[in-house]
């Protein structure tokens, strides 16, 4: 009888409980993807590190390893300054986007579920509406012919937004806010109402519930919301170029410049340094954020 029940798929309906047999070779379905990433991501990355230790002259890498590219980059190029600007921009944008998105989520949760979902999904969708064209439209908005540019125009006719760090930060906000809203929306949905209800029952006011209960429970989402815009800003050249012009020079633009002048060795060194700095910041951010959460739990 048991055999019949087992073979008839009665377990489907929860009549018989037996754990799924592990190790049936299901890992093989992921092997091809892993191989793909190893070949087309792992090898190029190793190649980048290897080539950053070689001199590139007259269209080819010279034999022998050297740290000259790193020396030139750090002591004899505008790269440290560009890296500083990049990090300041990226950190400011990710912090501002996350703060505004957090405010948006908390505000939206005061509305009915239907209205809230409509607003937040509408905002999220805009992320997929083309970055280059939206940046181009913002260039007009910020210019002395656009509305915001006209409003903020100095008496001498110059505008303070276009071709400035502030303008670049402001331009990133409408482009990256939808992404932060999407991440925090998911994080907020994961927060169980049981904790909020308990806090209210214990006499906590709305503000205290948000600050002491909801936001701490959203911490993993907040960290992701800080990391994603950071990565996108560090790797972007479109918005910086259109809004910042020649006045805002980031490390991504410098890497592009190295490819234009055919200096692949120094470009590789710049890429490796940028990769290390980003990795370090993301690792530190997530460790500090998630570590605290574990402690609180």
């Amino acid at each position: 009888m048991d055999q019949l029940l087992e073979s008839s798929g009665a377990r489907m309906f929860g009549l018989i409980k037996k754990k799924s047999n592990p190790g049936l070779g299901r890992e093989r379905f992921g092997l091809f993807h892993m191989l793909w990433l190893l070949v087309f991501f792992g090898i190029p990355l190793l190649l980048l590190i290897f080539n950053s230790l070689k001199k590139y002259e007259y269209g080819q890498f010279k034999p022998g390893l050297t740290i000259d590219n790193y020396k030139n980059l750090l002591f004899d190029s505008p790269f440290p300054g560009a890296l500083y600007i990049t990090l300041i921009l990226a950190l400011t944008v990710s912090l501002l986007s996350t703060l505004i998105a957090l405010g948006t989520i908390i505000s939206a949760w005061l509305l009915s579920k239907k209205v809230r979902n409509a607003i937040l999904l509408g905002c999220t969708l805009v992320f997929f509406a083309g970055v280059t064209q939206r940046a181009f439209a913002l260039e007009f908005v910020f210019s002395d012919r656009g509305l915001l540019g006209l409003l903020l125009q100095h008496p001498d006719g110059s505008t303070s937004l276009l071709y400035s760090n502030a303008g670049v930060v402001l331009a990133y906000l409408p482009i990256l806010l939808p992404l932060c809203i999407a991440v925090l929306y998911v994080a907020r949905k994961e927060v169980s109402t049981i904790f909020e209800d308990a806090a209210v029952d214990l006499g906590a006011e709305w503000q205290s519930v948000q600050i002491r209960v909801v936001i701490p429970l959203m911490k993993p989402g907040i960290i992701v919301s800080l990391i994603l815009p950071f990565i996108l800003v560090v790797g972007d050249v479109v918005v910086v170029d259109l809004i910042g012009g020649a006045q805002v020079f980031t490390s991504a633009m410098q890497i592009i410049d190295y490819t234009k002048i055919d200096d692949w060795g120094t470009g590789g060194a710049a890429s490796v340094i940028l990769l290390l700095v980003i990795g370090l910041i993301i690792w530190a951010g997530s460790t500090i954020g998630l570590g605290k959460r574990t402690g609180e739990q």
Partner: protein
Amino acid sequence: MKRIAAIVFLGLVIVLIFIPLLTMIVLSFSKGRFASFPWPGWSFQWYLQFFENSTLHLSLLRSLILGMGAAFVSTLLGFGSGYALSRMSSGKSSVLLILFTLPAIVPFVLFGFCFVEFAGYIGILRTTSAVLIAHIVVFSPLSTALCFHRFRQLNLDIEDAARELGASETKIFFTIVGGQSWRTLIASVIVIFVLSWDEYVISWFVSGFNKTYPVYVRNMLESTMSPEINAVGSIIAVLSLCLMSTALYLLRNPEKSKEK
């Protein structure tokens, strides 16, 4: 009072988010080459110009094929890896999931730079297939994450029942798991298509003369600054929004929707 403040704040955020999109749409109907105030008048000329621009059509077609190729292959790879990871122990799967998603969190400019060197070595530099391979690398992790999340929600008992009835692992994978997750797979195809379609930096590095749509638009911005960009941008934006709405609709949890 709290509610009013929330509505005002939300209104400001909506304005901030929609300003570039609305500006682009309005400018696409501008009569003048350089829009300014006072408004030069309304016109469809940039749309007409776009319909006559064969080079732009070619780049659009190239991006369309590229986006579709990247979307299908990435989803296929993500389907496999998502399933493999979702059926592992939590500790093992979290470590592997981080490794699988690593290409998506490396800034595109860095990946573009290292991939162009690699593409040169294997002789595929400045080809559309090089862009395709690169896009699959950076976007397939997204499919892995989406599939992983969906497969974790599936009832394992169904797979066990099929296994005991003699179904092979391959049949379970395609019939049981695939059959229950087709919505996620279609959503993954759409999301990756939209992202690949709009990707600029990697395409700029790798594509060479086979310019994709974003690279072509960027070149237009550097040279002519034609308002035609707004016209094509508006059409693409509307199409992308429609596609993404479909993807989000498909990504709803069907069980939860049924409960309602």
